[in-house]
């Protein structure tokens, strides 16, 4: 029988838990009753833990409103659809952007008929827009993680 220092034997622990949770077999029940009669320590443990169990039995999780369950499954389907939609959308954007950049480099930047100042101007405008977008995105992501007023009801 395993025993940790300062603790009752493991067999006693198991019997006490099963008794509290109404899970004793007939043989275990006999052993439990025998220990209750023969051991003051076992009896004291049983009385103390029974009282704790009586208290925890009084408290439970509050059930949500019934309507919550009506929408539960459709919310999951919406999320699934949204996930797939985002994936498809991003793939599409990447394809278009890739093709656009390729065309921009091979057609526009190398086109000798377009004035140099125009080519440089368009390139700088494009680079600026991309840099601004990246900066705003980074700030939004940072705020989402670290917003100290996240919990405040707005």
């Amino acid at each position: 029988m395993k025993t940790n220092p300062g603790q009752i034997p493991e067999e006693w622990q198991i019997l006490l838990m099963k008794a509290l949770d109404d899970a004793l077999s007939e043989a275990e029940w006999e052993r439990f009753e025998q220990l209750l009669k023969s051991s003051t320590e076992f009896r004291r443990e049983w009385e103390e833990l029974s009282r704790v169990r009586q208290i925890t039995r009084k408290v439970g999780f509050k059930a949500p409103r019934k309507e919550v369950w009506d929408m539960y499954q459709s919310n999951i389907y919406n999320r699934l659809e949204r996930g797939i939609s985002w994936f498809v959308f991003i793939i599409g954007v990447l394809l278009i952007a890739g093709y656009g950049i390729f065309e921009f480099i091979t057609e526009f930047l190398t086109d000798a008929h377009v004035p140099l100042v125009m080519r440089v101007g368009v390139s700088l405008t494009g680079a600026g827009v991309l840099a601004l977008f990246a900066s705003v995105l980074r700030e939004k992501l940072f705020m989402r993680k670290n917003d100290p007023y996240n919990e405040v009801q707005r």
Partner: protein
Amino acid sequence: MDVKTDGMERMNERDWIEATLSGDKRAFGLLVERYKQQAYYAALGFLHYHEWALDISQEAFVRAYYNLNRFDTTKPFFPWLYRIIKNLSLNELRNRKKRQSKLEELAFLEVTEVADTPTRDVEQNEIRREVWVALERLNPRDREILVLREFQDYSYQQIADMLEIPVGTVMSRLYNARKALKHELADKIGDLL
């Protein structure tokens, strides 16, 4: 969704998972239907707020759907879902810093006895508060196993599957957790009974 039309409701959990993997979303709907309440309460046990528990439990189903091909169909589904919920909930808690102050409301708990008088309401609030304050003081491992057993009424075997530990360990952990709770409630036990 009319599940009764194709006899799908008579299929077991494993069949539903295999049907989902073959592209049948309705089969996944049956899994959601079966486990939505357990999933919600599992999340509530960690998060303590109705909206968060709803959000995380639904997100857990979405993650389960996308990762279903990695699930071992010889094992029960809910313990696997529980572990997804647990991971998502712990991540969520790390991102929420003002949880403690709002917890005072304890709106997610109820006393199972019926309130008859205003005095009784006060007593019930006291029971809720004392029990939850004591639980909050326990280490997370003790709290988790107590919530699973006392608040969600899972069997030892179910808890063993969810926590991936032997049944014997469930009982000895539960013993230690109940002893720790007794220690935390200490001299208030008499008043709360």
